[in-house]
């Protein structure tokens, strides 16, 4: 039985610059702030940033093996709080923890915590899932 407070999945993901280039190609989002230090610096960013949609996408995948069927996901939403700067040498390490926040007639709300070091990357990252 799934209960409120249960951690249903967690993982760490290492992002490199190559991860960003791969996501750019896969998604079609070629905004240069996600691969060019020159452009990122020129627009006043602290460095090359991971695509918000990459973070959102890898975060929810943390729970897909637990769900068994991605079709059980009814809703997924996030608010982008802090960008992830991806260092050219060391990359960035993201930690994702998925915890059951609420259960009702429609299913369970799984709350995702996504952190980069001490920084929270996404807030209100909620996945509404149909319980099997």
């Amino acid at each position, binding site marked *: 039985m799934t209960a409120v407070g249960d951690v249903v999945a967690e993982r760490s*993901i290492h992002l490199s610059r190559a*991860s960003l280039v*791969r*996501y750019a*190609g*896969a*998604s*079609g*989002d070629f905004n240069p702030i996600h691969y060019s230090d020159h452009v990122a610096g020129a*627009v006043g960013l602290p460095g090359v940033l991971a695509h*918000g*949609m*990459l973070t*959102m*996408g*890898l975060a*929810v*995948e943390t729970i*897909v*093996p637990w769900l*068994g*069927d*991605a*079709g059980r*996901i*009814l*809703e*997924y*939403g*996030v*608010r*982008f709080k802090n960008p992830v700067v991806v260092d050219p040498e060391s990359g960035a390490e993201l930690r994702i923890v998925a915890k059951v926040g609420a259960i009702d007639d429609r299913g369970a709300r799984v709350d995702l915590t996504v952190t980069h070091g001490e920084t929270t990357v996404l807030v209100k990252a909620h996945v509404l899932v149909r319980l099997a």
Partner: protein
Amino acid sequence: MPVNPELVGRAFPPTAPYLVGREKVREFARAVFADDPQHLDPNAARALGYADVVAPPTFAMIVQDQTLQQLLAEPDSGIELARVLHAEQRFSYSRPIVAGDELTGVLSVTGIRTIGGNAMVTSEAEIRDAAGAHVVTATSVLLVGEEG
């Protein structure tokens, strides 16, 4: 030019059909670190009752992006890509996207809220399959910054 409030309620044509390819799903899955077999192996997807590999949940952004391009292309929108930040994103699913789907998106701007010189623009893409059945609605909130 500030964000044009008349975008709310404006009608946009459906995007050109997007045919979801199996290799595109696999490519996208690898990019979002999605290694569950349902995204990669057609047999694993079929065992779950799907016709082909299942796209990761945020794949819908590819079709939504086509609708956002329509929004940016409106000559009177007042939205300049260089001043846009992605503030929030939501998806509401009827079913997952599967390889073989032919998807079209219909854009609507549902809200524009001005805060000082900034504007929060909420837009929805209603994504349907070739039969016209609803697949997913993708909602973006874009923060359009003050003109520099």
